[in-house]
């Protein structure tokens, strides 16, 4: 054997996210084709994603459907159903994020045909790191930050907060007990992400929710 032929280099040049991105494109086509506007909601565990979605469910009713991503249990889907919307639970069985394939699978189980359906909200697994690299096929990516978490989280998780379209600051009913500086959080988020829109809400008291829901509604009925 001669030396030149023993080393073999094979060119691959493939984006590691290409499979996810193909499913994301499929999801976008499927949902877009039915005139359904899609949200991807990302936050740390307990920031209030399900609480915000429950409040949205009361505003939108059967115009909205929800995909819930959790490592285990159907609990969040049950909360959404109780609030009046169709919900599908993805149990990731350990994975710390949703990917577009899992969402594609969920969509195949849901009823996407009612004329009333205009909005699909996807609650990602509670995590500020892993979901940020996965496009699910959403039209709008929403980052949720709750005031007890602290206003320093935005610069600590730049990969997420630079990728969102909308920042929702939740649990504003607790603001007087905490030293969370809303202006600082907004400034820091804008520095990472100049086009971000910001809403301050309390899913508990409903403060700011009507304005936020109205804004979402304008995206598909405007």
């Amino acid at each position: 054997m001669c030396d030149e032929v023993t080393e073999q280099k094979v060119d691959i040049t493939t984006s590691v996210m290409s499979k996810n991105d193909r499913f994301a494109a499929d999801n976008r086509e499927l949902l877009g084709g039915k005139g359904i506007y899609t949200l991807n909601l990302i936050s740390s565990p307990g920031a209030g994603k399900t609480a915000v979605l429950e409040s949205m469910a009361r505003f939108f009713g059967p115009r909205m459907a929800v995909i819930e991503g959790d490592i285990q249990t159907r609990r969040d889907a049950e909360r959404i159903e109780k609030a009046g919307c169709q919900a599908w639970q993805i149990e990731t069985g350990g994975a710390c994020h949703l990917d577009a394939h899992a969402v594609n699978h969920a969509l195949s189980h849901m009823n996407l045909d009612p004329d009333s359906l205009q909005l699909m909200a996807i609650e990602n697994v509670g995590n500020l790191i892993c979901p940020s690299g996965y496009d699910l096929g959403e039209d709008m990516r929403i980052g949720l930050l709750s005031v007890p978490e602290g206003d320093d989280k935005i610069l600590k998780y730049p990969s997420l907060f630079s990728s969102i379209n909308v920042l929702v600051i939740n649990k504003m009913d607790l603001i007087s007990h905490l030293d969370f500086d809303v202006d600082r959080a907004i400034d820091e988020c804008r520095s990472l992400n100049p086009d971000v829109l910001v809403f301050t809400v309390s899913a508990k008291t409903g403060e700011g929710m009507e304005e936020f829901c109205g804004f979402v509604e304008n995206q598909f009925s405007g």
Partner: protein
Amino acid sequence: MNGGATMHELSLAHDMTRIIGNALGRKVHLDRVNITIGPLSGISPESLRFCFTEVAKIEGFGEPELVINLTRAKLICLDCDTEYEAKDFYQGCPGCGSISRRILSGREFTVDSVELEEGND
């Protein structure tokens, strides 16, 4: 190490071996795997290296060296229009110090090429 981050790199390591297996059409022992990671991709190179070493072995690709080409992000300053390169999210504009900018690139993550072990061609 952050447990969540490790899970994320673990699934990316599985994606890498799937891509390599598809490209080669078979499982063979590899000498080297060359990849490119952008500094804004949210991937921890060390965590990925740890996961990939395990996954490659389990999936039948031997014990290849993972060679990571870490690129620089391209950003454009929104305060003074300077286009500049950065190695992370926190590096400000070299012209005016502002961190208000638009991201032009830096989130890439590709498998570039693999080198087969001798006698595997």
